């Protein structure tokens, strides 16, 4: 069976010489939800930008559902990999919610009724159907984040990549987003510092530190390994104990 995401020996240095990745190997199967953890500066964003070829030119390879990330495949790769960026204002650049969600599929050549169907399907998945004609800045931050998720769901990606999905959300919005994400039948890679969120949503976690994967396993086990956590500057919030969370 082909992996949904297969990263082999990926190394990358920025043009200014700063090396961010030193040989990353990661294999994600269809339907998995994986948390990508790691301290600031570990190379998480660099890794994410390799998944759809925004960054390239280093060593190693990335494959998405059997297709290698390289220039000839960019259009198809960008359909297969849906990245939700951290700031929804960066993601939502069209005049209305509808147009923004239509942007991706339209770039893939979807038109007419099929395009409208994609838009309403994506809006329904994130519970934002009634906001279709609104300009993005009329929405609350939590609503904008949900629309940002919809913009990539409309492309029917193989893998959903979320960069800090819970950041800046109030607790209710944070929980609502969790409910939505849990309900999606899709492979997911979630970059986050929000460890309880990772434990809640992702059965598997990997730790990226110093440009390499230093741990890969069951999220709960990783979080209970105090030495591993400490070595990688990962800390659970005050009073939070993974042992007390129902499996």
């Amino acid at each position, binding site marked *: 069976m082909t992996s949904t995401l297969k990263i082999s020996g990926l190394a990358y240095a920025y043009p200014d010489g700063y090396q961010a990745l030193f040989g990353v190997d990661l294999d994600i199967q269809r339907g998995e939800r994986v948390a990508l953890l790691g301290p600031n500066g570990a190379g998480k964003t660099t890794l994410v*930008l390799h998944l*759809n070829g*925004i960054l390239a030119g280093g060593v190693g390879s990335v494959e998405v559902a059997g297709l290698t990330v390289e220039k000839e495949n960019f*259009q198809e790769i*960008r*359909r297969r*990999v849906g*990245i939700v*960026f951290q*700031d929804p*204002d*960066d*993601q939502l*650049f*069209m*005049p*209305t919610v*509808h*147009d923004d969600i*239509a*942007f*991706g599929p*339209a*770039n*893939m050549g979807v038109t*007419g009724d099929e*395009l409208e169907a994609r838009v309403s399907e994506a809006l329904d998945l994130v519970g934002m159907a009634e906001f279709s*004609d*609104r*300009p*993005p*800045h*009329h929405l609350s931050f939590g609503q904008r984040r949900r629309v940002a998720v919809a*913009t*990539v769901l409309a*492309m029917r990606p193989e893998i959903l990549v979320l960069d800090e999905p819970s950041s800046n959300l109030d607790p209710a919005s944070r929980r609502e987003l969790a409910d939505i994400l849990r309900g999606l039948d899709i492979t997911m890679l979630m970059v986050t510092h929000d460890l309880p969120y990772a434990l809640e949503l992702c059965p598997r976690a990997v730790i990226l530190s110093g440009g390499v994967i230093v741990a890969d396993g069951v999220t709960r086990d990783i979080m209970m390994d105090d030495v591993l956590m400490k070595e990688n500057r990962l800390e659970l919030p005050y009073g939070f104990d993974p042992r007390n969370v129902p499996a």
Partner: protein
Amino acid sequence: MPSPHQHGHDAGERLFVHRHTRIHSLPAEVKVVAMVAFIFTVIATPIEQFWAFGVYALMLIAVAAVARIPATVILPRMLVEVPFVLFALLMPFFGTGATVNVFGVTLYQAGLLAGWGILIKGTLGVVCSILLAATTPARDLLLGLERLKVPQLIVQITSFMLRYTHVVGDEMNRMRVARESRGFHATGIGSWPVIARSAGALFIRSYERGERVHLAMLSRGYTGRLPELTPYTTTSADWTTAMVLPAAGLLIALTAWWIQK
């Protein structure tokens, strides 16, 4: 301005007055062409034919009536032309040739006539664009420009400007609050360096946001063209309706020239 249903307060929507009229429903590119053509006929009319401008004004009042845009919307917006009006008002005081005496003030005839020309042609043009903006949402206007083959790049830049005015404005506001929270008050020229540095920081931040937006666009398959998302049909009836205004204008202009000779 209270209206039956206002849809928002964007930079572009603020000027739009929501109504359901024939003029509102005309496609944007049709309205743009009609307006520009009408303005050209106004400009081409000899300024000595005062009656012609009266007719033009009546025509625009008729358009406003059909579009149900009240004078209370149009008149305040006409203030944008004040700087130009001041210039036109100065013209009669300078010049050569024949003069007239108005309440003991000597005015030059040629200057009076030229000032009148600028004032009336400018005013008619301003009212035209106010009517266009009040009957066409900014977003449709951009789509219209695109269909009129205005370069994609310009349309895209304008569209991003509309989208991000608020975001950058908010950022600017947060920076102001942060400055003032640390005891800064803009007082005279001494505070300019601080303001200038803030402006620089705002520029860098906006530039970086531009890069992030571009990344997000690339990630969703952007290849340099915004896809056409709103299917449209412009009928010949639309064109016929819209062209009534410039056609009538042309008739007036030709008549004015014929009398002038």
